[in-house]
């Protein structure tokens, strides 16, 4: 049993990070996917996670969305525990009700979009605000139309996902996640399932988000050029640990670790 008294009930002080992974471990049976991970992401920071498959990079995002439970450590969002809740002065694993409230500050976009096929683009965006946040239909529609406008999908707002291309679906999915007004946005390989010619329309939306909004973002991607352009920091994962991290120009331009160099040259060859 882990000694939970080492973890504060909440983070205080001058520069509380928006996201803090504190000694987080994730295992599937005997396989350790993430090993004692500690990672801070500041408010408004854009962090991109790169690494070979199986290095645990997608797991980082899924744990932050609480789609995966963790086997050790604590994740904090905006100073408050996400995976745990305080009880009698110590942190205990969060129950479903606590998790529901805690994860509402996090939005996520998936590789395969996962739009709701029985709803139009607009209905997809309105679903969360109406059902979860309790907004009126009118408020939710205004908010959703504004976001669909931003992602360039306003003229398709009454189409069902089956009538939209992959790039269009992913842009709707971004609007849907933003309609919940999250503090942290997660992008899990959002361009990996797209045809090459439509990747740009999705990356342009993310670029705009980075330049015009103060969202905290974590992204997993294989688009190295894109990651270098827009990230504040790159984390290179290897074997469930952060092998190396730094500003994009340092990590891409002057990697220090051998494994980073090998990975980057392998990626470059494949390009």
């Amino acid at each position: 049993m882990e000694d939970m008294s080492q973890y504060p009930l909440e983070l205080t002080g001058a520069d509380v990070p928006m996201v803090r992974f504190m000694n987080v471990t994730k295992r599937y049976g005997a396989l350790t996917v993430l090993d004692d991970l500690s990672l801070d992401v500041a408010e408004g920071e854009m962090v991109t996670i790169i690494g070979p498959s199986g290095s645990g990079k997608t797991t980082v995002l899924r744990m932050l969305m609480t789609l995966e439970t963790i086997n050790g450590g604590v994740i904090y969002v905006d100073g408050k525990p996400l995976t745990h809740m305080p009880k009698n002065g110590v942190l205990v694993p969060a129950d479903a009700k606590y998790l529901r409230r805690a994860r509402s500050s996090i939005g996520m976009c998936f590789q395969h979009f996962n739009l709701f096929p029985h709803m139009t683009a607009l209905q997809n965006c309105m679903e969360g605000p109406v059902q979860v946040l309790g907004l009126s239909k009118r408020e939710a529609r205004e908010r959703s139309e504004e976001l669909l406008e931003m992602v360039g999908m306003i003229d398709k707002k009454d189409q069902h996902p089956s009538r939209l291309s992959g790039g269009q679906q992913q842009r709707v999915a971004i609007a849907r996640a933003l309609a919940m007004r999250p503090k942290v946005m997660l992008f899990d390989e959002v361009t990996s399932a797209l045809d090459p010619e439509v990747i740009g329309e999705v990356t342009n939306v993310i670029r705009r988000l980075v330049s015009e909004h103060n969202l905290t973002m974590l992204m997993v991607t294989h688009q190295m050029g894109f990651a270098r352009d827009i990230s504040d920091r790159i984390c290179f994962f290897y074997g469930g640990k952060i092998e190396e991290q730094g500003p994009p120009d340092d990590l891409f331009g002057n990697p220090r670790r051998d494994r980073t160099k090998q990975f980057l040259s392998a990626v470059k060859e494949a390009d």
Partner: protein
Amino acid sequence: MSYPEFLAEYGGRYIDGALITAAQFILAAALAIVMALIMGLLKLSSNPIAKGVAVVYIEFFRGTSLLVQLFWLFYVLPLFGLTFDKFTTGFVAVGLNLGAYGAELVRGAIQSVPKGQWEASYALSMSPAAQMRRIILPQAFVAMLPPWGNLIIELLKGTALVALIAVSDLMFEARQINGSTYLSAQAFGTALIIYYIFARFLITPFMRWLERVMARRLGRG
């Protein structure tokens, strides 16, 4: 007696019987759908008691004969002080029996909804009940419509058994007419035709229409 004469003589009783069959069918179908939904959801529950209830229900009603279940409800329950009239017993037995098959369709259809739909609605902080009601069931409903079409026709045919506890449905009238006229070909032939008309020209087109409507709702129309 020519067939037109036969129809002129007994047509009214066939219509009466067909109306009782239609009523049995509609009530049994409504019960089957409700039971299928409840038991299908319970079977997916992580609560072992809830799941156990569904398993017992499904095993009992799928694993034993509808005819025996019908007789059991009609002749055995009164021994325990539970008495229903024959009309109620009829559609309850058929509805419970077909509901057990329907429960497996509901369970299978819910499980066929891609995992990404659960994850996306979870990521929007939806409660489990809202996820089921708003996101999963509407999609599962579309997936289970074609097999439900078959099941509903099975259910119609199953209602013919209620004649055996003397509910005056279509089959009951056909047997009565056969018994008094010995015109078996006409008596049972007319019943066959009416069952076929119900199945082929009322139920099947209705299910097809429902499938088209649901497909349009998914934007596939």
